């Protein structure tokens, strides 16, 4: 078996063609290495993959979306012998894709569909996530629900959130962005919601 090339905008990625794109360059721009893994899983190994930052952004958004959904499931995991037919069928579908020449992109879509299905319990979803992550390797089995309780957030971060809210009230957008960046540097992602800013630990 052979894997296909990654292409930069100048053709096959190599040391000699333009900016030397190492993983450090990506992490320096704020991506997690797991975003790159998600990006690669979204294509099949036998096709050339065109690298792009919009592509990386999409991968990151999707991966963080998965993390958010999974952390909202709670920590309870169903027992293997108590799984419903529906959950089993998702797992079988997932298997059939990965076992067919590593069709990871299609396998990912099964994961998404399963997570959005209101017909199965959170505990069963947790089980299925762990099962599928054995192959995907995105660290989804380690996502816990304890990533957003107010008691965990350090005082410094809370202060920055306050400062940002003030800046926004004063329409000082530059400062607001600066505070948001500082919050991110401290390991938290800030999201504005209708009920106020919400923080999530960076993964």
């Amino acid at each position, binding site marked *: 078996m052979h894997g296909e090339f990654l292409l930069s905008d100048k053709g096959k*990625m190599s040391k000699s063609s333009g900016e030397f794109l190492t993983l450090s360059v990506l992490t320096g721009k704020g991506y997690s290495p797991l975003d790159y893994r998600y990006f690669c899983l979204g294509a099949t190994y036998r096709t050339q993959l065109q690298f792009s930052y919009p592509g990386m952004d999409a991968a990151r958004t999707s991966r963080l979306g998965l993390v958010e959904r999974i952390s909202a499931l709670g920590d309870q995991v169903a027992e293997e012998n108590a799984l419903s037919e529906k959950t089993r069928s998702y797992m079988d579908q997932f298997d059939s894709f990965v076992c067919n020449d590593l069709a990871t992109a299609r396998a990912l879509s099964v994961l998404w569909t399963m997570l959005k299905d209101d017909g199965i319990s959170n505990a069963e979803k947790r089980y299925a996530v762990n099962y599928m992550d054995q192959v995907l390797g995105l660290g989804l089995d380690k996502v816990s629900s304890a990533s957003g309780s107010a008691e965990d957030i350090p005082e410094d971060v809370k202060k920055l959130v306050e400062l940002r809210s003030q800046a926004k009230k004063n329409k000082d957008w530059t400062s607001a962005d600066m505070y948001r960046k500082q919050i991110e540097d401290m390991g938290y992602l800030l999201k504005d919601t209708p009920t106020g800013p919400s923080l999530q630990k960076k993964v």
Partner: protein
Amino acid sequence: MKVYLYNTMSRTVEEFKPITDKFVGMYCCGPTVYNYAHIGNLRTYIFEDTLKRTLRHAGYKVKHVMNITDVGHLTGDGDDGEDKMEKSARETGKSVWDIAKFYTDAFFKDYDSLNNIRPDVVCPATKHIDQMIKLIQRLEAGGHTYIAGGNVYFSIDTFPEYGRLAKLNLDELKSGARIDIDSNKKNPKDFVLWFTNSKFRISRLAYRVLGNEHVLPWRAVRHPLRRNRRHSGSPHQ
């Protein structure tokens, strides 16, 4: 669980059937540790890790072996160019051992952060020179090699199946188009198995790594750099 995989040799997706029941021996080419890996290189390791995970998920026991190329990878496409490690050492003033260690560590840092499972066996090329020599001697005994200009070549004319894996049409391939023609070669597609007489002083690296005794089996011509010096103690563990 049945697994279907694309077989490069047959150019089709086939049902995977292991040689040994429920067991897979998987060998994957590892990095050349003369510089950082770029993300194109890293894509390959993600693919291989996915393959390994899938096979284990399907119930196979998988033994994953990966080499580290810490010597012998030339800068040119063919048999030309310098040894990449030697070149890096020359340019930075560090020893080849330091360079290999530094970039091996950097490689595994990236590898781990991508959540790849480590291979079961990691084997640097420099630790398997004896086996390489024995393999070349086997080829020699089988009549597949010749010596010219101090170097040992593989003679592709002795192996009709050559090129099937890469689907090379040997008549169509224009040799000399990107590679300097080596007048030592019987067939321009022949490749070097062992250098004792490279104009880019790969032999000096070989001496440093191996000591004189390993170079001797194929020393057809008295090498100009040979000075009867034992190579200085290797910091290799």
